[in-house]
């Protein structure tokens, strides 16, 4: 996916002014948070599971090459094919080639963030394939020609009415549906036809299991299963960091993923696929491919953002992020929104181009508190700011202000004098009113709020005047 047009500021301003988006955000926000809290409360082991999961991921990451090799060997021994793609362009080419060789016309897709990351749909459509998203949310935004705004609920920014409009326009000959159940049913009917026509089915891979050569997807709609079993060719797209050693390890992550993502004990469908259809199998794909995408991940292994590779894409961080809750996912400009995106997007697409993402954060720590694999997201967002500073990206005005403040703050006498002066001026301006409704140079504060005025001389001056303690 190409980065969205505009800046973070322009996109977030648009988001704040969009009443249906704000309505959609109001609807969804409490849902995910409350459901997760309830699910976690019912599993006393949850905190220990988080530790275990983080430890498993760290162990895998410290020998990632070994685990990837084992996984690939196993897949190939089952008759599958593993492709390593260094970047997005390489990944696109590999999948185009698979589709071309298969003589495909229709390509069905299960939800895959990596396919969004590498801009797969655009490439395949350019080649003339009919590309059909089969996840309900992805299907909706495909019809709307919009990018996803959430990694597990891609159409979360759409209200029910908007979806009804969209379906009415795109499903000619059907009466308009208004209810959620009716809309789901309508999508199911439209998609069923496509599944039968599908030549190549592309899914993501939530986890890849080295010991068995298995790819695992979890969905709530079962669309992933239909995508991969009804197509002649199954292609799994996944990041290289998604490999786990054993099925036992998988059980730890499955217990964390659904609870963190949607507050379910488990997703409705957990599907394990190992290789193509074997002789005697009643169904399954004739070909089974796994495209493992690096696209900057191996570089993260050796740097300050390595912990980010533990991410299992549950979306808990954005569900709990108050900034995401205010502006939604499109403001972040690319595939990965919210806290995890504020780290991944600058790493994948450039620190300068995405200057705002790590800065548009209050460092409130709520994301970090819920991350199932204990990624220190808040710390990493601050670290990203530090990388931006080191790269000279802090705007000149802010840099000058920071330098001046840093110097003054190391001259206690001068700092005291300036605080005294500031206090006196603010008090003069406020009179006895207790607050200022405007202040030259501080409109960013006073446009929305009054500024409480200082109570009197500074604390330290008053303290010293009273002779200190007692």
């Amino acid at each position: 996916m190409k980065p969205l047009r505009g800046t973070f500021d322009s996109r977030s301003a648009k988001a704040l002014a969009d009443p249906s988006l704000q309505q959609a955000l109001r609807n969804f926000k409490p849902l995910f948070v409350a459901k997760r809290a309830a699910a976690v409360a019912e599993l006393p082991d949850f905190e220990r599971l988080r530790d275990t999961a983080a430890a498993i991921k760290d162990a895998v990451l410290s020998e990632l090459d070994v685990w990837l090799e084992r996984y690939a060997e196993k897949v190939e021994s089952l008759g599958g094919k593993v492709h390593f793609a260094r970047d997005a362009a390489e990944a696109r080419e590999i999948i185009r080639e698979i589709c071309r060789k298969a003589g495909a016309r229709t390509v069905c897709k299960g939800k895959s963030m990596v396919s969004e990351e590498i801009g797969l749909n655009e490439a395949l459509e350019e080649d003339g394939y009919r590309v059909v998203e089969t996840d309900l949310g992805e299907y909706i935004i495909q019809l709307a020609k919009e990018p996803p705004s959430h990694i597990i609920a891609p159409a979360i920014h759409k209200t029910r009415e908007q979806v009804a409009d969209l379906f009415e326009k795109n499903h000619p000959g059907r009466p308009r549906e208004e209810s959620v159940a009716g809309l789901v049913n309508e999508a199911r009917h439209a998609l069923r036809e496509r599944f039968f026509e599908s030549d190549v089915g592309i899914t993501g891979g939530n986890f890849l299991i080295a010991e068995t050569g298995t790819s695992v997807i979890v969905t709530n709609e079962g669309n992933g299963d239909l995508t991969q079993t009804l197509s002649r060719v199954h292609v799994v797209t996944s990041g290289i960091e998604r490999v786990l050693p054993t099925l036992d390890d998988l059980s730890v992550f499955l217990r964390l993923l659904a609870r963190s993502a949607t507050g379910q004990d488990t997703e409705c469908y957990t599907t394990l696929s190992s290789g193509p259809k074997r002789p005697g199998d009643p169904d399954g794909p004739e070909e089974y491919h796994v495209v493992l995408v690096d696209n900057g991940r191996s570089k993260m292994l050796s740097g300050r953002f390595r912990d980010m590779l533990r991410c299992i894409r549950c979306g808990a961080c954005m569900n709990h992020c108050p900034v995401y809750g205010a502006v939604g996912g499109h403001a972040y400009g690319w595939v990965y929104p919210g806290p995890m995106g504020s780290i991944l997007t600058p790493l994948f697409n450039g620190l300068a181009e995405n200057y705002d993402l790590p800065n548009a954060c209050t460092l409130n720590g709520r994301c970090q508190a819920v991350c199932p694999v204990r990624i220190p997201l808040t710390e990493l967002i601050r670290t990203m700011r530090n990388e931006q500073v080191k790269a000279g990206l802090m705007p000149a005005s802010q840099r000058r202000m920071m330098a001046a403040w840093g110097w003054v703050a190391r001259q206690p006498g001068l700092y005291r004098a300036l605080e005294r002066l500031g206090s006196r001026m603010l008090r003069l301006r406020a009179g006895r009113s207790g607050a200022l409704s405007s202040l030259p140079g501080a409109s960013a504060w006073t446009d929305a709020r009054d500024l409480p005025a200082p109570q009197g001389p500074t604390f330290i001056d008053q303290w010293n005047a009273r002779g200190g303690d007692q």
Partner: protein
Amino acid sequence: MTHSNRAQPRVGLMATCLMNVFRPNIGFSAADLLRAAGCRVEVPSDQTCCGQPAYSAGDDDAARAMARQLIEQFEAFDYLVSPSGSCIGTVRKYPQLFADDDPWQARAEALAAKAYELLSFLVDVRRVAIDARYQGKATYHDSCSGLRQLGVKRQPRELLSQVEGLEIAEMDDAEVCCGFGGSFCVKYPKISEKMVDDKLKSIAASGADTLLGGDLGCLMNIAGRLRRAGAKVRVWHTAEVLAGRTDGAAIGEEEAR
């Protein structure tokens, strides 16, 4: 200068920049409470800032310079205490700013280990009996830094439960950021405005006539927005209520004639 002893530890009170300029009453309240907890309180006159703005902005060089200054000013005390979770959170981060073989690292560790946010200090380290009255129904905003970096949650509630006349009405989303976030509120004012409005809705829904919290930045943000919205909710730092220093104007409130 008195020598420290366990019966009467020497506490260096860190006057946060905002408190020092905008709300000295919090400083005096903190001193009262610390004395009531049997501490001897000193306020180093040459202290300036803990470096939080630089640290949060990712400017580690500037933050390190501030850290060295503050370590020198406060390391002789038995404890460093401040009525702010975010400033103490910054002091607790100091060790990360220095390399392992830097002699400042050990000094940073030592200071971080005895640096406490006021309300948690008064419960977890020194017991204090509260002797205060406040007539009202208050709701509590858990400021993010105190809550998630320092685990300040039950301590203020435990202390406030001893205040005569005070009723606590918890609000929904008490643990959700109010949109202050230091420079965030002026860098992204519209998003911040949306967030503080969400907070105002939660406060209104709680039916409280008073908002309490432990970090002045958040309180000024919320009080400023409440006043702009014409809401009649009074805003105090928890220390002011605990010390019984609530005779004057609350934060952002007009002075009595």
